[in-house]
């Protein structure tokens, strides 16, 4: 992929392979995600989502292939690029003996663009008691802190691994709003890569979706387009195959449930139905 194309994409990779302890976890990942995209990374536990995020950020080296973030090779991220990245891992990577306030001040010292006042204000909005030590915070509050630390230096690329798993629905809504805050002042909207099992939440905010299964990408694309193009059809036993079939599985009684690209399938049977994100997830992981 040439340099220019890499810069248009905030996240890209080519043939990424990664093994952990001898077990293949990423088995040939190709991605091309444009700047300003909000990308939902979905897949069952063990599909390789966290590992992919770590590889993209240069935290885990691949065994094969290449990846780039914000125009830099993941394995060669320099300080200026690092300052543009924000990451919240699933476990939060917090220092248990520090208070919330100390975390904000400590992490802030690493980033020239850190807005201490904003970070503290964010803690207030998320109702985080800044005097509390991390060890005394609930899991949900620890997640909120991890988010503040990822966001407060206003990164161009935000990578969030299951950021809202322990948050209640109201907090999750607020979190969605937070993702877009400050976009009006930016020359380019922030790029976000987030993994989550809360698909109804993702549906509100994603512009793109990447489905992973067993270390591979099954499907990726702009979510509006995928929704417009993909249809599910149940075919009775003995039916001829449909053009544009992306995925199929057997139903009891010899029939097949088929996922088709409607643009290629020609005329579809009456019962072809459009899919919500959760439906698509279930089909791709059946």
């Amino acid at each position, binding site marked *: 992929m040439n340099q220019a194309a890499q810069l248009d994409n905030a996240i890209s990779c080519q043939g990424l392979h990664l093994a952990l302890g001898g077990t293949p976890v990423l088995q040939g990942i190709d991605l091309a995600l444009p700047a*300003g995209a*909000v990308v939902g990374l979905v897949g069952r536990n063990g599909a390789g989502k966290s590992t992919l995020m770590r590889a993209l950020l240069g935290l885990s080296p691949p065994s094969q292939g290449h990846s780039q973030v914000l125009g830099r090779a993941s394995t060669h991220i320099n300080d200026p690029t690092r300052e543009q990245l924000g990451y919240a891992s699933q476990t939060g990577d917090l220092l248990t003996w520090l208070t919330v306030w100390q975390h904000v001040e400590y992490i802030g010292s690493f980033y020239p663009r850190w807005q201490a006042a904003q970070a503290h204000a964010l803690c207030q909005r998320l109702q985080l008691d800044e005097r509390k030590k991390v060890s005394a915070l609930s899991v949900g509050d620890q997640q909120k802190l991890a988010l503040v630390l990822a966001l407060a230096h206003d990164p161009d690329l935000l990578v969030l691994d299951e950021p809202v798993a322990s948050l209640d629905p109201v907090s999750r*809504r*607020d979190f*969605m*709003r937070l993702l*877009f805050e400050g*976009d*009006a002042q930016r020359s380019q*909207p922030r790029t976000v890569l987030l993994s989550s099992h809360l*698909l*109804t939440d993702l*549906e*509100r*905010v*994603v*512009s793109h979706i990447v489905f992973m299964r067993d270390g591979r990408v099954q499907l990726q694309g702009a*979510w*509006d387009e995928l*929704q*417009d193009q993909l249809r599910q059809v149940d075919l009775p036993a003995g039916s001829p195959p449909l053009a544009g079939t992306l995925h199929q599985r057997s139903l009891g009684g010899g029939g097949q449930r088929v996922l088709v690209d409607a643009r290629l399938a020609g005329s579809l049977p009456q019962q072809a*139905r*459009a*899919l*919500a*994100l*959760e*439906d698509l997830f279930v089909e791709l992981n059946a």
Partner: protein
Amino acid sequence: MQLDIAPHDTVPIYRQIVDQVRRQVVGGSLKPGDELPSVRTLANTHAINPMTVSRAYGLLEAEGLLERRRGLGMVVAQAPAPQPDQRLALLAPALQAAARQARELGVGSDEAVALFKHCLADLPLAE
């Protein structure tokens, strides 16, 4: 402006916005000159991606239903009075979907029509 966003609906969110604004303009609950909420406000209210709202507004502007006014943002455009047919054409898809469901459930035509009248009667009076 009242908007109902159902993210898990199989209709993409941008299209839900376009359809609802269109219906409200054609139906008269949104009148020429009425201001629409800004992209940021609408996105924030419903906790959705501002690009989605932007896209919907862009499509409505291209259609001529909305226009951009300096200092006001998006405003309902001046338009000729809607034809009765246009309103019925916009209602048709929802009724076709309901008709299919009625057929699947084995609900007869008379019963279905009676139910629809009941639903209409239940709604609060339009302003």
